[in-house]
C-alpha cells in the first residue's frame, strides 16, 4: 500500500506528464527493432520435430515402377476431362475411384458474393483403413484448378494414382479421404463445412459418406499438363484463414521428408531464391506476416485450419529434375508419418513466424513487438486521461528566463493565487491552479466514439454486399469521403463550440485506449495484422489538439494553430486506412476491384475478419485523431 501511495504522490510531479510521448516513441522503436533482429541467428531457432510419433522419413517408400504407367494413364484421363461439363467430369473421376474399390460420393456447392456465383462439385473417396476403427481420418486434396486458375492436371492424377496405390496397403491405422475439390477456395470450404455439419443446407449439399475426426490434410498443387513437367522445388503454403497457422510439426515433417529423404528443396512465401542471408530471411518473414495479416485463403488447405485440422499445400515450382514419382513418394512418406500419429497435433507451436524452411521464431520471442506497439497507445491514453483532469489555464513558469510583458492588473491577481503547503517542517508555495482537479465531461467524448464505431458499420456492410460493378466507384467515393470527413465533422462540431479542449483530449484518450485494447487482443489471435495496423496507426499517438493561444508567451504552435492544424490534417490523410489500402494495391500492382471481391468472398465463404478489424478498429481510431487535429482549424 505504501508503494502505491508513493506512486500516487508521484503523479503530481509535472515531469511525469512530459514523459509519455517519449515513452510511446520508445515503445514503437523497440517494437520495430525487435522485429528486425528476429532473423538473426541469436533470436531465431532451427525447426525440430516435437512429436516423436511422427518419425518422418523413417520408412521405405515403394511408390514407383508400374505405378508410373498408371499415373501417366490417369493424367491423360484427366486431360480428356478438361472442358467437359462438371457433372460428366465428376462422374468419370468417381468411376476411377470406384475402380480402386473405394467408396465415392459427390457434393455440389454454390456461393454468392459481390453478385458473383461460385459453384462447383467436389468428388471424394474414403479409404477405410484396414487397422482403423473409423474414428480418425487424414485427407489428401487436389483441387481441379489451383489458386492461379490453372488446371491441376498432374495433382489430380497423382491423387487418383495414390488412392489406387494406398488401397493395397494393409498398414493404415486411420481412414484416408481423397478429395478432388471443384476449385481451390470455395470447394474445400464447402466440403469441410459439410463434414462438420456447419454448412448452410440451402446452397451446399451434405456429405453422404463420412469418416472420423480429421487429423491432418495435405493438398497438392501440380499443374503440369498431360506431357508432364519436371520441377525444381516444393513450395510449402501454410497460411490459414484469418491468420491461423497449422501446427509447426506438420510443416516440419513435410520439409524434413522432402528435403531429407527425397532431396527436394523446400521454399516458402514465394521466396524461390533464398540465400539464407539476413535480407532473405527478413523478406520471407515480412511476406509471411503480410500474408497472415491479410488473413485470406492461400490454398485448398486454408479452409481446414479454422476447424483445428492442421493442413498444408505442397506446390511444385521451377524447372528441375524431380518428377511426379518423387512427389508421390514424398506424399507416401508423409502419409505414413501422419498414420503414426497417436494424438491430434499438439506438441509443437501454433504461433510462429518462419523465415526459411528450417528456421523459425516462436510466439514468446516475437509477441512483445506487437504488444509494445499496442502498449504505446495505452500509455498515451493514460497520459491524456491525466492531462484532461488538469486545468486548461497554463501556469507561468516562475523560473522562466524569457521576460513576459507586464501582466494586466486583473490577470496578475489570478496568477499570484498561491496555496501554502506544509509537510513536516518544510513549507512550499504552489500556484493553486496546479493543484485543482477539474471535473471531466465524459458525455460528448463517449457518444462521439460510440457513434464513430457505428458509422464504420456502413462501409463494412457496403463493401461486403455491393455488386462487383459498383465496387470501384464505391471505393473511390469512400476514399474521398473518409478523407474529408474529419475536417467536415470538426467544422460541424465547431459551430456548437465543441469539443472543448478537454473534450478533444478525452476523445483522443478513449480512441487510443480502445485501439490499444483491440490491438493487444488481436495480437494474440493474429499477430501480423495487429502489428501492421499498429505501425500505420502509430502517428496517431503523437498528434494533439492544438490549444488556443492563451497568453502572449504561448508556444509558436498555438499562435499558428490554423496552418499547423491544416498541415497535420493533410498529412493524416496519407495514413487514412482507405488510402493506405489503395497505395498498397498500387505498390503490388493488384486490381483494387479484385482485392475487394476477394475480401467479400472471404466474408461470405470463409468468415474472414480482416475487414471488420480495418473498419471497426483502425478506421475509427484514425477518424477520431483526424477530428481532434482538424478542430484546431476552426476557432
Amino acid at each position, binding site marked *: 500500500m505504501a508503494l502505491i501511495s508513493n506512486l500516487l*504522490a508521484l503523479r503530481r510531479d509535472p515531469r511525469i506528464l512530459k514523459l509519455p510521448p517519449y515513452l510511446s516513441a520508445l515503445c514503437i522503436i523497440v517494437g520495430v527493432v525487435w522485429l528486425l533482429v528476429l532473423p538473426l541467428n541469436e533470436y531465431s531457432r532451427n525447426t525440430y520435430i516435437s512429436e516423436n510419433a511422427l518419425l518422418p522419413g523413417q520408412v521405405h517408400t515403394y511408390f514407383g515402377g508400374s505405378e508410373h504407367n498408371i499415373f501417366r494413364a490417369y493424367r491423360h484421363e484427366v486431360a480428356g476431362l478438361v472442358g467437359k461439363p462438371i457433372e460428366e467430369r465428376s462422374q468419370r473421376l468417381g468411376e476411377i475411384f470406384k475402380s480402386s474399390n473405394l467408396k465415392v460420393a459427390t457434393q455440389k456447392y454454390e456461393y454468392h458474393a459481390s453478385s458473383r456465383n461460385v459453384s462447383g462439385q467436389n468428388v471424394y473417396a474414403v479409404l477405410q483403413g484396414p487397422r482403423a476403427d473409423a474414428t480418425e481420418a487424414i485427407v489428401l486434396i487436389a483441387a481441379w484448378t489451383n489458386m492461379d486458375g490453372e488446371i491441376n492436371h498432374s495433382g489430380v492424377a497423382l491423387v487418383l494414382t495414390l488412392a489406387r496405390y494406398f488401397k493395397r496397403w494393409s498398414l493404415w491405422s486411420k481412414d484416408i479421404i481423397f478429395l478432388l475439390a471443384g476449385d481451390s477456395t470455395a470447394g474445400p470450404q464447402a466440403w469441410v463445412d459439410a463434414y462438420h455439419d456447419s454448412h448452410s443446407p440451402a446452397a451446399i449439399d451434405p456429405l453422404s459418406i463420412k469418416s472420423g475426426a480429421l487429423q491432418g490434410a495435405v493438398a497438392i498443387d501440380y499443374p503440369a499438363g498431360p506431357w508432364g513437367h519436371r520441377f525444381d522445388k516444393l513450395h510449402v503454403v501454410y497460411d490459414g484463414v484469418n491468420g491461423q497457422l497449422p501446427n509447426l510439426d506438420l510443416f516440419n515433417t513435410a520439409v524434413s521428408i522432402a528435403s531429407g529423404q527425397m532431396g527436394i528443396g523446400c521454399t516458402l512465401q514465394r521466396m524461390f531464391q533464398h540465400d539464407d542471408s539476413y535480407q532473405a530471411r527478413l523478406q520471407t518473414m515480412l511476406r509471411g506476416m503480410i500474408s497472415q495479416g491479410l488473413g485470406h485463403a492461400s490454398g485448398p488447405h486454408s479452409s481446414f485450419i*479454422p476447424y*483445428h485440422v492442421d493442413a498444408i499445400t505442397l506446390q511444385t515450382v521451377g524447372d528441375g529434375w524431380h518428377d511426379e514419382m518423387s512427389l508421390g513418394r514424398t506424399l507416401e512418406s508423409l502419409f505414413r508419418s501422419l498414420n503414426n500419429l497417436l494424438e491430434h497435433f499438439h506438441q509443437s507451436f501454433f504461433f510462429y513466424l518462419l523465415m526459411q524452411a528450417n528456421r523459425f521464431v516462436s510466439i514468446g520471442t516475437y509477441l512483445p513487438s506487437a504488444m509494445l506497439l499496442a502498449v504505446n497507445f495505452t500509455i498515451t491514453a493514460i497520459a491524456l486521461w491525466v492531462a484532461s483532469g488538469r486545468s486548461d489555464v497554463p501556469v507561468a513558469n516562475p523560473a522562466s528566463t524569457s521576460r513576459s510583458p507586464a501582466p494586466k492588473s486583473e490577470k496578475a491577481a489570478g496568477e499570484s493565487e498561491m496555496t501554502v503547503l506544509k509537510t513536516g517542517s518544510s513549507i512550499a508555495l504552489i500556484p493553486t491552479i496546479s493543484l485543482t482537479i477539474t471535473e471531466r465531461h465524459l458525455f460528448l467524448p463517449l457518444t462521439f466514439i460510440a457513434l464513430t464505431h457505428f458509422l464504420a458499420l456502413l462501409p463494412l456492410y457496403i463493401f461486403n454486399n455491393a455488386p462487383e460493378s459498383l465496387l470501384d466507384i464505391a471505393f473511390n467515393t469512400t476514399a474521398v469521403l473518409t478523407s474529408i470527413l474529419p475536417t467536415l465533422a470538426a467544422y460541424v462540431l465547431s459551430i456548437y463550440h465543441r469539443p472543448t479542449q478537454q473534450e478533444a483530449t478525452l476523445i483522443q484518450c478513449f480512441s487510443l*485506449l*480502445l485501439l490499444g*485494447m483491440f490491438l493487444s487482443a*488481436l495480437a494474440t489471435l493474429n499477430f501480423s495484422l495487429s502489428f501492421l495496423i499498429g505501425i500505420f496507426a502509430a502517428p496517431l499517438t503523437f498528434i494533439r489538439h492544438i490549444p488556443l493561444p492563451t497568453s502572449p508567451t504561448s508556444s509558436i504552435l498555438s499562435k499558428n494553430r490554423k496552418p499547423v492544424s491544416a498541415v497535420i490534417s493533410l498529412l493524416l490523410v496519407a495514413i487514412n486506412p482507405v488510402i493506405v489500402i489503395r497505395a498498397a494495391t498500387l505498390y503490388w500492382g493488384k486490381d483494387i476491384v479484385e482485392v475487394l471481391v476477394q475480401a467479400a468472398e472471404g466474408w461470405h465463404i470463409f468468415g474472414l475478419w480482416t475487414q471488420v478489424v480495418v473498419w471497426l478498429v483502425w478506421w475509427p481510431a484514425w477518424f477520431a485523431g483526424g477530428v481532434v487535429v482538424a478542430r484546431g482549424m476552426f476557432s
Partner: protein
Amino acid sequence: MAIDQQKALLFGAAAAVRLLLFTAFPSLPNLLTGRVEISTPVTSFKRLQEGVFLYTHNVSPYDGGLYHQAPLLLPLFSLLPNPAYHPFATNVLYTIVDLLGANALMQIAETGQTVSSRLFTSPRKDLRWSSLAIGASFLFNPFTIATCIARPTSALTNLFVLIAMAKASQGASITFILALSFASYLSMHPILLFPPLLLLCYNMRVTKARTPPNPWAYTLSHVGGLALALVALLYTSALLTGSWEFLAATYGVRLLLPDLTPNVGLWWYFFTEMFDSFREFFLGVFWLHAASYVPGLTIRLRKQPLFVAITLTGIFAVFQPYPSIADATLYLSLVPLLRHLFPLMRYTFLASSAILYTSFLGPAFYYLWIYAGSGNANFFYAITLVWSLGLSIIIGDSLFAALRDELDVERPELRGKEVRRI
C-alpha cells in the same frame, strides 16, 4: 410530467434496442446463450429449456443431471410458447424484466439513501446523478443488454435483488421480504443481503413512524417472515416436482460445485486442479470467505446499510461459485448510485480499463483455448483473474472512499489531507 415523459422515452428506447437486437439478429440469442461468460450451469437458458422439456413430458427435470435451477421457473416457462419456434414471448418477458429492474433502480436512486440515511449524511450529498441517468446507465450498459439477449435466469435474480433494495429503502417491509425471498429462492446467495437491507428497512421505518419500533421485535418478525416465505416457496416447489430432490440439484450444486464448466469466476480452475481429499476443506474456506464479508461490512458501515448491500453484490460477482457477467452488471449498475464517492476514488481509470480490456481479451483467449486449440485453460483463467481484479479494485476503492467520507464527517479537521490505510 416531464420526468414521466423522459422515463417513458428511456424505457421505450431500451425496449426498442432489445427487441431490435432480438429480431434483427435471430442467431444472436443462441450465440450469447452458449457463451460461458454469460451462462453458467446454474443460470443457463439452454439448460432451462432442457428442464422445461422434461417437465412438460412428465419426467423429473432433475433426472438428467443438467438442470440446476429453481423448480418454480418450470411452470412459468412452460406457459410460454417454445422459444425455439416462437421466441417473441420470451424476448418480451426478458425485456420487461430489464425494464422493471431499471424501474426499481430508479426508485432506489430517488430515495437518495446512498447519500443520506438516518444516521449518516455525506458532505457531498449534492453530488448525485438523476434517477433517469442511473436508469439509462443500467439499461444501455452493453453487459446488461448482452445478459438480456442471452436470457439467463440470473436476470430474474437481479430483478428481485433490485426490487428488494428498492422496497427496503422505501421501508416497505412485506414487499421487501417477498422480493428477497424470491431472489434467495432463485439463487441462494442473495439471502446474505438480508442483514444490511433489514437495517436499511428499519432505518426507514424509524424515520417514518412516530414511535420507533422495538429493534428486537422488528428483527424477529422480519426473520420470521423471510423464513415463512422461503418455506412456502420450497414447499410449493416440492409439491410441484413431487419430491425434495430439487434441493440437492439446485442449492446442493451451488454449494458443492460438482459442475466445473469454466466461467468468469475464481472457483472452477482452482477446483479442477485440486486433489479430491482437499475438496471439502477448500469448499468450506471459499464459502466462509465469501460469506464473511457480510457481518464485517454490516457492522463497520452500519450507518450506510445501502452501501453495504451494493458492495456485497460486487463481492458476490467476484467470489460466488458460478458468477457471470450478469452478476457484474448488477453491481456495475448500482455503482452510479455512489456518485458522491467518485471524487474520493483513486483507481477508476485503472479499474475501468482492466474491465474493458478483459471483456475483449476474455473471449479472444477462450476462442484460442476451445476453438483454435492453440491456447489452453491458463489463458482464459488468467483473464478471469484480471476481470476479478478489476471488479475488486472498484469494490476496494469505493470502500476506501466510503470510509474516507465517514472520516470527513467525524474528523472535519482532516478533510483534504492524505490518509494512509494501516
